[in-house]
């Protein structure tokens, strides 16, 4: 990031890397970051899975899905200089042979949405720098 900022909303341990590396306690620029997860899943009926020979060959018996949504607001005093949103969806099937945990899926979705926010920030870095320089 072309400047440092103060975190006023969000967990300092769970931020997009670009923001995490640009934190300062005494900056007039502020960051507010919010992340949310929504979960969904699809399962074959248990009886069908049990009777289906494909289940025993590793055919998926269902799927887990996690969508991470994130929003980042960057302000310079009272003026909002940047607002970014992103979402990422991770879906993984499970079978008798492999089964992701919810924790693994959540972490993958969080990492993906943070990367997406980072990409947007880097794409907009020039404009942000000009915007901050204009007020100094």
């Amino acid at each position, binding site marked *: 990031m072309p400047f440092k900022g103060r975190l006023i909303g969000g*967990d300092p341990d769970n931020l997009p890397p670009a923001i995490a590396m640009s934190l300062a306690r005494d900056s007039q620029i502020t960051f507010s970051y919010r992340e949310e*997860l*929504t*979960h969904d*899943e699809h*399962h074959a009926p*248990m*009886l069908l*899975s*049990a009777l289906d020979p494909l*289940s025993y060959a590793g055919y998926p*018996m*269902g799927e887990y899905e996690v969508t991470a949504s994130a929003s980042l607001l960057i302000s310079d005093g009272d003026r909002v200089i940047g607002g970014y949103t992103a979402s990422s969806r991770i879906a993984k099937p*499970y079978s*008798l042979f492999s*089964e992701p*945990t*919810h*924790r693994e899926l*959540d*972490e993958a979705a969080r990492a993906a949405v943070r990367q997406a926010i980072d990409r947007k920030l880097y794409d907009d870095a020039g404009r942000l720098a000009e915007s901050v320089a204009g007020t100094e």
Partner: protein
Amino acid sequence: MKLGSIAATIAFAVALGGCAAQGPPFERAGAPPGRAVIYVYRPYSFFSSAIHPIVQCGSQSAAIEPGAYHAFVVPAGPTGCRAGTETRDEVEIDAEPRVHYLRERISWGWLIGRPHLDPMDHDEAEAEIRSCCVQQQ
């Protein structure tokens, strides 16, 4: 003969109904300030009714019967919930001081059913827990 089969089927079904947990209906658990409540509930399913995996949230644990729920009152902050048999599922909950819901579901396994802890939306979970589950005794 036919009548006998029907009667046996009905008796079997009634006996199975007895496998579901018995207890008081859903009631919100009180939590002191700075604590979060994680409800783990398990809708009744015939296929998995004999399996009672231990669910652990933070330092507390409970074996939840089919058709029952358990309220874990935990300190606010990141809390891990896990349950396992031949495989293990884990969920990390950022337990802000409010209510969270997990639905325990047992899927097919090689030798024994596998527990899953599905994070649930508040509205859907609250409606479901009221209709499916009683307080774990």
